[in-house]
C-alpha cells in the first residue's frame, strides 16, 4: 500500500514538472491559445450600450462593431471622408428653398437588400417558462433573425425623442430634424400618463407614433427632413445614434422580467454588424463574436496584399477585459497576453526614446519584442479659457486683449507637453487640430500674437517674456501690479479635481507661468460638478477645458466660440462666452459650405479673429501612442472611426509560440524558499527535541553510587 502511494506521488510530481515545462501558468485567458481571438482591455465599465445614449469611448469601442449606421468613414482616406455602409450610395440630398433661403434639406437613403440581424431571441418565440427562467440573454436558446429594413432606422430616430432613453443628442437633433421636438412632447405626455396609472416602467411602442421629419418610402428607402441646411448631418449618420433598432427588440427588452436581471438594450445590443456581444459582464469581460449573419464586406486596401479584397472581419472573436490599473495592464501586454496597449507616463521611458531628429522611436527592449508603435494626432484641442464676461480678464477692448495675449505668451505649453505628456502633443496655433479641414502648418498659419517664426528651425517659437511683460504693462498692470491695490494682480484659476499624481505638480507649474509675469494665480480646485456650475454661472475667471471632436469638420471646433452657444446665456459649449459679431457672421457663412478654397479662407479669417481677441490660450493637440504586438498585421491608425475591429488581423500561431517562449514559469526560487524554511525550522526542531529530552533534574550519578556504598 505504501509502495502504491509512493509511486502515485512520484508520478504526480513528474506530471507536474512536465506540464510546467510547457504550460504558461500566468496565462489569464482560457481556451485554445491558437485561436483567432483578439485580446484587449477597457478601463471603465461603459454606462450603457444603447446606441441612442452611448457617448463614451469605452462604449463606442464596443457598439461600433455591432451597430451599422447608414454611413462609415473611409478607413484609409485623409482628410477623413465618408462612404456608404448599409446604403447603396451616399444619401441623395435635395433642398427646398423659398426666396433663395433653404427651408428644408431632404436626405433620401437607400439600403442594400440582404442585410440581416445577428441571431437574437427577439426574433423567435421563446416559451413563457424559458422567459421567466432566463437570467441572461444566452439562456434563451431559441433565436431568429430578419432582414434589415428602412423602418428600423426610422424607429431609432424616434427613440432619440423618447423620455425613457434620454439621448444626449436630442437637443441638437431637435433643432434640425423636423417634428422631433413635437414627438418628444407627445411621448412625454403618454409616458407620464402610463406612470400615473401605476406602471413603473412604461413602454412606448414607437410604431404607433409618427415623426413628420422621417418618412419610410418603401422597404429599403427612407427620408429624413431637416430644418434649413446642415451639411454636418452626414457625420451624424456615421454614428451609432442613427443605427437601426428593430421594433421587436424594443418590445422584447420591455419585458418586466428581464429588467430584474439587466437583460435590456443597455447591455445586450442587437445589430447587423460584423460582431455581436456574446458575453457581457461590464465589470469583468466583454466578448465580441463574429456575427454568423454578417453579409461580408470587402477589404479595399493596397497595404496588405494578403488581405486585399478579402471578406471582413478577419478575427473570429475579441475579448475585452476590464483593467482599471496601469500596472497589471502593462505587464500583461509585455507578457503577450494583450495584443495592443497604450503607454502610461510611468512606462513611457521604458518604451520610447527620441532619435537624433527628436522623433519618438521604440527602445531596444521593445524592438527586440517586435512591438510596433503607431502615433496619430487626436482631433482634440486643450486650452486655457478666459471668461469674457469677467471684469478683469474679459471684454473685447484693447487693454483686456493685451492682458490675455500677455498671459497666452507666458504659458509655455511646449514645456507642459514635455514635462507632463512625454512630448505627446503639438502646441496649438488655433482651435482646429491637424487632420481637420482648415488646419495648416507653416509660417503663414502661426498665431502671430503668441509666436514668431524661427527661420532656422522652420518652427514656431514662442515670443519672449519681455514682449509679454510689455503687453501686460500696456494693459495697465506694469510688472503684474494691480494699480488699484498696489499688489500683484490676483487671478482665479478654476479647475476640476483630478486623480492623477501629477495634478499637484501641474498646478504648481501653472502658478509659475503666471508668476513669470508677477501675477498671483489663486487655484480653486473643486469637484467636477461645482466646476461646471461655476462655468454655467459665470463665476469662473480662468479655467482649463478640452474638446474632443464629434466629427472631423471645422464647424465642430469653431462653434465653441459662436455667441449662440454661450454657456451662460444658452447653456451651450462656448465656455468662454466669446461674442464677436464678425466672427458670428463668418461662422454662419462657413458652417454649411463644402470644403472649398473659399471656406478655407473664411476659416483663416475666423482663426485670425480668435488669435487677436484671445478668448483662450490655445494649448495643444494630443498625440495618441498605441503599441501593437508583432503578430498583429500593421494597420493605419484612425482617430475618428470606431468600427475598426473588422479591419484587424492577427497570427495566432505566432502569438502562441511567443507567449510560450516569454512565459515559462521559473521554479527554482520556490525550491530555494523551501530550503530556507527547512534551514530555519530544522534548528528549531532540534532545539525542541533537546529540550523535551533533557532530564528535569541533573544527577551526579558517580557521587550517588559512592554515597550508597
Amino acid at each position, binding site marked *: 500500500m505504501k509502495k502504491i502511494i509512493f509511486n502515485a506521488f512520484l508520478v504526480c510530481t513528474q506530471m507536474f514538472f512536465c506540464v510546467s515545462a510547457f504550460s*504558461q*501558468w*500566468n*496565462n*489569464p485567458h*482560457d481556451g485554445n491559445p491558437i485561436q483567432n481571438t483578439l485580446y484587449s482591455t477597457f478601463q471603465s*465599465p461603459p*454606462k*450603457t450600450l444603447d446606441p441612442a445614449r452611448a*457617448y*463614451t469611448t469605452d462604449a463606442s469601442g464596443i457598439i461600433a462593431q455591432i451597430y451599422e449606421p447608414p454611413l462609415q468613414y473611409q478607413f484609409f482616406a485623409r482628410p477623413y471622408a465618408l462612404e456608404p455602409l448599409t446604403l447603396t450610395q451616399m444619401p441623395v440630398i435635395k433642398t427646398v428653398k423659398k426666396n433663395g433661403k433653404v427651408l428644408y434639406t431632404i436626405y433620401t437613403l437607400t439600403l442594400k437588400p440582404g442585410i440581416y440581424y445577428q441571431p437574437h431571441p427577439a426574433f423567435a418565440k421563446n416559451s413563457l417558462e424559458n422567459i421567466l427562467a432566463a437570467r441572461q440573454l444566452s439562456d434563451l436558446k431559441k433565436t431568429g433573425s430578419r432582414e434589415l429594413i428602412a423602418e428600423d432606422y426610422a424607429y431609432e430616430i424616434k427613440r432619440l425623442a423618447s*423620455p*425613457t432613453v*434620454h*439621448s*444626449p*443628442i*436630442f*437637443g*441638437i437633433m431637435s433643432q434640425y430634424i423636423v417634428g422631433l421636438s413635437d414627438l418628444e412632447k407627445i411621448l*412625454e405626455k403618454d409616458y407620464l400618463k402610463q406612470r400615473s396609472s401605476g406602471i413603473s416602467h412604461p413602454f412606448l411602442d414607437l410604431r404607433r407614433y409618427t415623426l413628420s421629419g422621417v418618412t419610410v418610402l418603401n422597404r429599403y428607402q427612407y427620408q429624413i427632413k431637416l430644418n434649413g441646411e446642415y451639411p454636418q448631418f452626414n457625420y451624424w449618420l456615421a454614428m451609432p445614434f442613427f443605427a437601426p433598432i428593430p421594433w421587436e427588440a424594443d418590445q422584447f427588452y420591455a419585458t418586466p422580467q428581464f*429588467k*430584474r*436581471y*439587466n437583460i*435590456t438594450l*443597455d*447591455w445586450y445590443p442587437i445589430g447587423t454588424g460584423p460582431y455581436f456581444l456574446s458575453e457581457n*459582464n461590464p*465589470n*469583468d469581460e466583454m466578448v465580441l463574436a463574429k456575427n454568423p449573419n454578417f453579409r461580408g464586406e470587402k477589404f479595399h486596401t493596397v497595404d496588405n496584399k494578403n488581405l486585399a479584397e478579402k471578406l471582413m472581419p478577419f478575427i473570429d472573436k475579441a475579448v475585452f*477585459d*476590464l*483593467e*482599471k*490599473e496601469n*500596472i*497589471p495592464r502593462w*505587464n*500583461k501586454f*509585455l*507578457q503577450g497576453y494583450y495584443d495592443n496597449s497604450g503607454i502610461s507616463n510611468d512606462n513611457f521611458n521604458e518604451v520610447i526614446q527620441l532619435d537624433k531628429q527628436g522623433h519618438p522611436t521604440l527602445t531596444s527592449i521593445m524592438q527586440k519584442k517586435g512591438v510596433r508603435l503607431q502615433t496619430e494626432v487626436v482631433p482634440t484641442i486643450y486650452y486655457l479659457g478666459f471668461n469674457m464676461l469677467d471684469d478683469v480678464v474679459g471684454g473685447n477692448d484693447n487693454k483686456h486683449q493685451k492682458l490675455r495675449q500677455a498671459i497666452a505668451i507666458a504659458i509655455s505649453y511646449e514645456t507642459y507637453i514635455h514635462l507632463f505628456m512625454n512630448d505627446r502633443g503639438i502646441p496649438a496655433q488655433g482651435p482646429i487640430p491637424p487632420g481637420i479641414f482648415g488646419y495648416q502648418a507653416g509660417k503663414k498659419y502661426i498665431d502671430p500674437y503668441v509666436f514668431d517664426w524661427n527661420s532656422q528651425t522652420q518652427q514656431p517659437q514662442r515670443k519672449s517674456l519681455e514682449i509679454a511683460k510689455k503687453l501686460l504693462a500696456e494693459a495697465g498692470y506694469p510688472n503684474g501690479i494691480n494699480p488699484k491695490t498696489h499688489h500683484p494682480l490676483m487671478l482665479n484659476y478654476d479647475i476640476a479635481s483630478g486623480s492623477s499624481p501629477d495634478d499637484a505638480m501641474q498646478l504648481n507649474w501653472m502658478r509659475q507661468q503666471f508668476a513669470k509675469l508677477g501675477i498671483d494665480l489663486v487655484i480653486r480646485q473643486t*469637484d467636477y*460638478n461645482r466646476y*461646471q456650475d461655476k462655468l454655467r454661472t459665470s463665476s469662473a475667471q480662468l479655467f482649463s477645458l478640452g474638446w474632443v471632436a*464629434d466629427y472631423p469638420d471645422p464647424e465642430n471646433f469653431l462653434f465653441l466660440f459662436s455667441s449662440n452657444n454661450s454657456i451662460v446665456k444658452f*447653456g451651450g*459649449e462656448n465656455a468662454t462666452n466669446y461674442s464677436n459679431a464678425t466672427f458670428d457672421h463668418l461662422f454662419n457663412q462657413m458652417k454649411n459650405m463644402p470644403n472649398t478654397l473659399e471656406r478655407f479662407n473664411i476659416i483663416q479669417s475666423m482663426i485670425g479673429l480668435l488669435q487677436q481677441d484671445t478668448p483662450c490660450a490655445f494649448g495643444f493637440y494630443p498625440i495618441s501612442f498605441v503599441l501593437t504586438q508583432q503578430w498583429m498585421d500593421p494597420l493605419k491608425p484612425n482617430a475618428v472611426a470606431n468600427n475598426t475591429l473588422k479591419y484587424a488581423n492577427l497570427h495566432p500561431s505566432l502569438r502562441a509560440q511567443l507567449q510560450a517562449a516569454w*512565459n*515559462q*514559469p*521559473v*521554479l527554482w*526560487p*520556490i525550491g530555494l524558499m523551501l530550503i530556507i524554511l527547512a534551514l530555519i525550522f530544522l534548528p*528549531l526542531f532540534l*532545539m*525542541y527535541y533537546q*529540550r*523535551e529530552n533533557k532530564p528535569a533534574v541533573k544527577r551526579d550519578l558517580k557521587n550517588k553510587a559512592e554515597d550508597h556504598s
Partner: protein
Amino acid sequence: MIAYLFRRILYTIPILIGVNVITFVLFFMVNTPDDMARMQLGQKHVTANEIRQWKMEKGYDKPLFYNADKNGFEKITDTLFYIKSTDLFLFRFGQSDQGRNINHDIFQRMWPSLAIAVPTLMIGLAVNITLALLIALFRGSMFDRTTMMTCVAMMSISGLFYIIGGQFLFSKLLKLVPISGYNPGWNAYKFLILPVLIGVIGGIGAGTRWYRTIMIEEIHKDYVKTARAKGLSEFTVLFKHVLKNAMLPILTGVVVIIPTLFMGSLIMESFFSIPGLGSYTIDAIGQQDFNIVRVMVFLGTVFYIGGLILTDISYVLVDPRVKLE
C-alpha cells in the same frame, strides 16, 4: 438568550434609520440631483429638459424630506427620502441610476469578494495561530525576538506594496500566476492564489503579534502548569490545551468580521480586476449613483450589526460561563 437577541434586533431598526438619514443628508450635501443627471447623461450637449426628464424618471424631481405642495401624510411620503427608504428596509433595492438591477448585481458580485475574503481569512487564521504558537513554544529565544522584529517590519509596510511587489515577483518575474483577472466557477482558482497569498502575508505581522500575546497570557495559567506536571510534551500543552482556551478571544475577534467579508476589499479588487463589491461601491461613489451608495451603506451597517450579534452568540457557545441576559 432569545429575548436578548430579539432586543438587539429591535435596536437595529433605529440604528439603520439613523444611518440612512445621515447617508442621505451627506450625499445630497455634496451632490445635487442635477449633478447626478449630468453624470449619467454625459457632459456633451445635455440640455435642461433632458436633465428634468431624467430626474423625473428616476424620482429625483421630488423634494428631499418635506413636500410642501402636498396635503396630509403626503407631505412626508411624497418625498425622495421616504420613497427611496421604504423599499430599502424590505431589501428591495431597485435599479441603479444606470438602470441595472441592484439586487442582481450584488448577488453576482458578492461571490468574487467572498472567493478572496474567505480563503484569506481561513488560511491567514491558520498561519497566524500556528506561528503564534510556535513563537510561544520558543518564547524568549532568538527565534522569538527575530520573528517579532519581522512582524513589526511587516506591519509597517503598506498593503499596496505587497500587492505591487507580489504581482512583480510572482507574476512578472517568476511567471507562476496571472497578474490579474477573474473567471467565474472553478477556473477562478489560478486568479485567487496571488491575492489570497498577498492577503495572508500582509496580515501576518499584526495577526501573529496579537495571537502571540493571547497565547503567552494563557501559558501562565494554572492549568498549563498542571498539564506540564502531568508530563505532557510542550507541543501537546500548547497546541491542544492552550489553543483551546485561547480560542475565545480569537473567535470573538474573527466572528465580528465574517459578515463584512461580503463587502470586499477595494484595493485588492482594483489591482487584481476582481469584479467584487468593494469596487462596486467605489465606482458608485465616483459616478454619484445614490441608489447603489445608500444600498451598500445600508448593507454594510446590517452586516456589521449582524457580526456583533454573532459575536455575542459565539461567546455563549464557546464559554458556558457566559450568559446573555
